C-alpha cells in the first residue's frame, strides 16, 4: 500500500510555518498575476506580521473547514507555493481545491503538476471525498489547461463574472469525480 501522501519526486507538501514563511508570503501578496490566479478578491498587499497572524489564527483551528499546505522542493525548506482544500463538505463528499506556484521562474518545472496529483490523491485516498472543484477564469488559460491535464472537466462557465483590466471574463469552474481519478 502506497502511504507516502505528502512526498513526491520533485516536491513535498508540508504544513505552513507561520513565522518562517511570512516574508515570502508577504512578497507574494504584491504579485497581481499570482494573487489573481488564486482568488477573485482585489489585490491587497499584506505586511509579514499580518500574514503571520492570519496563518496562526487558521492553524489554531484544529477542526477546520479547510486544510492548507505549503509546497516545497523535496530536499529544501524554501516555499514554492501554496495549496488548500477549502469548503470541506463531509455529507456530500466535496471540497474546493486551490493551488499555485508563486514565482514565474519556478513554473514549467513540473512542481505544480506533481503537487496537484498529490493533493487530488490525498482528497480521494485519505479524505474519501467524492469530487473536487477548482475555480479559475478564462483570463488564465494556463490554469484551465493545468487542471484539465490532471483530469478535471470544465463544468460551469459563469459568464462575465470576472472584471479585470477593463474586460469581462467568464469564471470557469472545473470538477473531477472520484471515478475519474481512479480511472486515471
Amino acid at each position, binding site marked *: 500500500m502506497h502511504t507516502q501522501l505528502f512526498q513526491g519526486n520533485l516536491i513535498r507538501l508540508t504544513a505552513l510555518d507561520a513565522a518562517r514563511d511570512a516574508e515570502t508570503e508577504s512578497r507574494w501578496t504584491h504579485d497581481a498575476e499570482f494573487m489573481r490566479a488564486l482568488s*477573485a478578491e*482585489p489585490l491587497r498587499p499584506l505586511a509579514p506580521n499580518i500574514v503571520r497572524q492570519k496563518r496562526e489564527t487558521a492553524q489554531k483551528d484544529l477542526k477546520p473547514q479547510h486544510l492548507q499546505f505549503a509546497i516545497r522542493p523535496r530536499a529544501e525548506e524554501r516555499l514554492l507555493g501554496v495549496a488548500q482544500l477549502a469548503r470541506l*463538505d463531509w*455529507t*456530500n*463528499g*466535496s471540497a474546493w481545491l486551490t493551488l499555485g506556484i508563486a514565482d514565474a521562474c519556478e513554473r514549467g518545472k513540473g512542481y505544480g503538476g506533481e503537487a496537484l496529483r498529490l493533493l487530488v490523491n490525498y482528497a480521494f485516498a485519505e479524505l474519501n471525498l*467524492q*469530487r473536487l*472543484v477548482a475555480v479559475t477564469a478564462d483570463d488564465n488559460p494556463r490554469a484551465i489547461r493545468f487542471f484539465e491535464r490532471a483530469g478535471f*472537466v*470544465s*463544468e*460551469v*462557465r*459563469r*459568464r*462575465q*463574472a*470576472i*472584471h479585470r483590466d477593463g474586460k*469581462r471574463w467568464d469564471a470557469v*469552474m472545473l*470538477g473531477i*469525480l472520484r471515478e475519474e481519478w481512479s480511472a486515471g
Partner: protein
Amino acid sequence: MNCDLLRGERVRLTARNAATDAPLLAQWSYDSEYLRLSDAGPARLYSLAQIQEYLEKESAAENPHAFFFAIRTLAEERVIGDIELDGIRWTHGDAFVGISIGERALWSQGYGSDALRVILRFAFDELNLHRVSLNTFEYNPRAIRAYLKCGFQIEGRQRRALNRNGKRWDVIYMGILRAEWANSAR
C-alpha cells in the same frame, strides 16, 4: 423613477426582525424538505434562542457583502419566507441570490417569482451590479423553472455534487446579466 424599490406586485421586501421572524424560521425548519431545498448542508435544528441570536447578529453586523430581507405579502403583511443577496463581489459586480418560501401552502403561487423580480431590480438599479448568480439543485425542478421564467440562464452543472437519500444529484449554476435583465424582465 420607481421610488418604492422594495415593493413588487404581491410582496415587498423588508428588514428581517429577529424577535418576530425567529419563531417562523424555527417552525419552517421542522419541514426538512424546506431545508433540503434551501441548503446543501445536512438538515439540523436550532433552538428559538439560537435562531434569534443568529438573526440579531446578522442585522447588527451590517455585512457589506450581503443584504438580507424578509418576504412579506402585500395583502396580509405576513412574513412567508426570506431572500438575500450574498457573497457580493463589488469589484466584479457579481452576487449570489438565495430565496426560500417557508410557508409550504404558498409554494407555486408566484410569490417567489415576484420577490425575485424585486431583488433583481434592487441588484441592478440600486447596487449597480453587472450580474446576479445562483445555484440550485437538480432535485428542485420547480425552482429551476421559476429562475428560467425570471430570465436566469443555466451556466453549467457541478456533476453529482450532492448526496441525498443515497443518490447523487447535480448542483446547477444559473446567472442573469444586467443587459439580459434590462431587455426582458424590466
